[in-house]
């Protein structure tokens, strides 16, 4: 594994300038758990590696009345265990399902998102809460809704010179319950065959708002919009969850790969969405 240049920019501005200078020849280093194996396997061969670790404030989170801003370098394990983030159980659970303890200690939320894998897990946890991606770039800052951030496997909305600084995760309304479930053959260390997130807002015993997110069943992390629409106005019981699972099954667009065939993934979507909805309903306080 070799690259020619290594940089540790001390500010966002400096980092953007380096990204503009090196363009496609540069890769950003967050935790490195995806980048380093890919460089070793020569899937990626950047000329320049730019570490984000000297830029202040990227490893922390900041709570406010409207929600929380989580820095791109927040390690996934720290996130999954953080008691200040108990309002967002689906995000914590999703981050806690990414790979092994060691990898979660190294891997970051920003890296998990920018890698743009459909099986990211933590990303689907962010999508459950309609998170906003805060992007810095040579022409200033901008925001993108997390569901619009992914453009294909390994492809994001980031333009030249831009990088992800943090995520804003809105605080859920009173009466919300949420859950995230991962299905993989060998547990969390394995890559998801299916991930399913759910957030339900209940008013007078009926579902007033719903989010259903799916991992590993489409080219990008996805929202099951038809399933969400179906859920509105329903009672969050077994019958509803079963019917919703069937709709999500039709919405999922999986491929067959060495981990699972497409039909199997669809079967699992139906089961996991059913459970995610019931788990979310049970979590409403």
């Amino acid at each position, binding site marked *: 594994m*070799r*690259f020619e240049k290594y940089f540790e920019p001390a500010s966002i501005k400096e980092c953007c300038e380096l990204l503009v200078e090196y363009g496609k020849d540069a890769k950003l*280093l967050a*935790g490195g758990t995806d980048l*380093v194996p890919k460089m070793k396997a020569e899937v990626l061969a950047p000329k320049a*590696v730019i570490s984000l670790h000297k830029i202040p404030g990227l490893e922390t989170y900041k709570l406010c009345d409207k929600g929380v801003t989580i820095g791109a370098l927040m390690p996934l394990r720290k996130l999954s265990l953080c008691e200040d983030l108990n309002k967002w159980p689906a995000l914590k659970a999703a981050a806690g399902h990414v790979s092994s*303890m*060691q990898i979660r200690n*190294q891997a970051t939320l920003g890296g998990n998102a920018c890698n743009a894998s459909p099986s990211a897990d933590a990303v689907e946890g962010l999508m459950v809460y309609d998170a906003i991606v805060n992007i810095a770039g040579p022409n200033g800052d901008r925001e993108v809704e997390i569901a619009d951030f992914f453009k294909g496997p390994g492809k994001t909305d980031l333009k030249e010179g831009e990088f992800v600084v943090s995520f804003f995760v809105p605080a859920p309304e009173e009466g919300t319950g949420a859950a995230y479930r991962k299905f993989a053959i060998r547990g*969390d260390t394995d890559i998801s065959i299916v991930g399913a997130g759910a957030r339900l807002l209940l008013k007078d015993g009926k579902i007033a708002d719903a989010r259903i997110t799916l991992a590993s069943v489409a080219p990008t992390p996805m929202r099951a919009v038809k399933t969400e629409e179906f859920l509105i106005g329903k009672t969050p019981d077994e019958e509803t969850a079963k019917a919703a699972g069937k709709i999500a099954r039709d919405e999922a667009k999986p491929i067959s790969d060495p981990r699972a065939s497409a039909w199997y993934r669809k079967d699992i979507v139906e089961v996991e969405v059913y459970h995610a909805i019931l788990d979310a309903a049970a979590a409403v306080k």
Partner: protein
Amino acid sequence: MSEIEKIRVELTVNGKHHVLYVSPCKTLLEVLREDLNLIGTKRGCDDSNCGVCTVLVNGQAIKSCTMLIPLANGCDITTIEGLEREGGLHPLQQAFIDRFAVQCGYCTPAMILTAKAILDENPNASEEEIRDGLHGNLCRCTGYTKIMEAILDVRDGKYKESCGEV
């Protein structure tokens, strides 16, 4: 491709301070084995699946084959060579011997360090929590039962008198 400029890295490894000038292309595993001659840390798959390269960085278990050396700059690192105290074995080391939790031995340093990270964080970790923590460590001899028994013995305080605290 031109040779990359070396960077200055400060590491505290097993309590000993080092200042090194190394290529930033190196991983922590390579620096430990090649520059510091600490070969107790093993190289297995070299792509962060098998876990035999696990070391503790600031007390946290990480896979050293996947950590670029600049990220370890300024960190406190514990390898298997750092567990002995006053010539005696660490409780986990002794328990692995007593329970015969070692077959070929290749995964053992990482198993012990990962177990240490789990028990340091939660001395009363349940069997399930320990298994969950060890999920990223493979033993190709498949001696998992003995490994669990050794760790549970230490958790249950069977080595307190002979070896002190975990």
